């Protein structure tokens, strides 16, 4: 086991920007924050030197693993962007989840949807349908989202209590497994 490799796997799995401080909390080790930073910078350089398909970028004091920008044209081919004039299915799904489960973090939304939802969340914020509702006190201090008054207006609701009951479904879960 090697700290650098563990950090690499954390960056990969976390997928969002993460600070050396948060990584230290995960490692729970004698390693200092500045050593963690050094390890990440080492990885960054190594990826860059070999022009690897993956790169690590720095955002403020956080780090994130992402694809190498140079290969963007290929990536776009697999993840085909869709153009839409109304809210996409993705944005609507995300909005529905926030409406019913607010306040809720991005990670929770993504766990339900099974895909990264940054873009959908940004669209909803830009259109003033959702907003931040504080932060959760855990690693990464994730932002909580809730719907706005504008949301109520657009959907013709007086309050969140007016949201329709979710169509009931059979509770077969006990037998399901």
């Amino acid at each position: 086991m090697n700290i650098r490799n563990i950090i690499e796997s954390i960056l990969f799995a976390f997928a969002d920007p993460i600070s050396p401080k948060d990584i230290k909390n995960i490692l729970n080790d004698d390693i200092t924050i500045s050593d963690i930073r050094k390890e990440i910078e080492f990885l960054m350089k190594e990826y860059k030197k070999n022009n690897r398909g993956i790169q690590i970028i720095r955002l403020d004091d956080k780090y994130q693993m992402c694809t190498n920008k140079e290969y963007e044209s290929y990536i776009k081919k697999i993840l085909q962007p869709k153009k839409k004039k109304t809210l996409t299915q993705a944005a609507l799904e995300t909005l529905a989840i926030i409406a019913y489960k607010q306040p809720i973090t991005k990670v929770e939304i993504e766990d339900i949807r099974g895909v990264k939802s940054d873009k959908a969340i940004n669209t909803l914020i830009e259109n003033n349908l959702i907003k931040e509702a504080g932060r959760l006190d855990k690693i990464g201090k994730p932002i909580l989202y809730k719907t706005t008054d504008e949301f109520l207006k657009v959907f013709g609701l007086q309050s969140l209590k007016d949201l329709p009951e979710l169509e009931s479904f059979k509770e077969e879960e006990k037998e399901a497994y």
Partner: protein
Amino acid sequence: MKYNITLKSYEGPLDLLYDLISKNKIDIYEISIAEITDQYINYIKEMEKMDLELTSEFIMMASRLVQMKSRYLLFKKSEEDQVDPRKELIETLIVYKQFKNASEFLKSRQNEGDKLFFRKKEELFEEEKIDLQNLNIQMLSSIFPTFIKKEIKKESSFPKVYKFQTISLEEQIDYVRFKVNKEGKLSFKELIKKETKEEIIVTFLSILELIKANEITVNQDTLFSDILIKKVE
């Protein structure tokens, strides 16, 4: 032979038979049809008493066993062209046992994949100028595939600890504007809810902004007395 099995539920007649055989430590090929039939029938009688679900499959197997038992009485091993009446059952049991063992293997590995963590797929889409006109609430409540509904019904899995965001100036301006429009006039104190230092400062700044925008006027009778806010008509 005495048997003593705790009354548990079986997946089916084969599961029960298989269990009886292994409990008695009998070689499948040497099943005593008479014994196993008695035990099987005793067992399903117990099931009936205990109100356990007794499906038609269990009952069918019972009659199959009884039939086999009577045929076995007439069966003579010496006569070569006679097929052992047990043969079919034995073969079925052997195949079943193989898969039952295979399922034990799968069971031992069913959390193997949990050790790996995968990324979630990125979602790329471009939205042009969005028209919010055609949205309606049915679109939201109907959008959930069943699995999402299940998720939503469940309680959120970790306790939520909130750190409340500081009140933003924009929000507070909206709030003061809303109150003034509604009441026509009101006092500063009526705008303060939690009486935190932060709230008081932000509210005061909001008032300054609204004065600047010529939306309200203010009056204060004496120093440190309450401020009266009026809407500019």
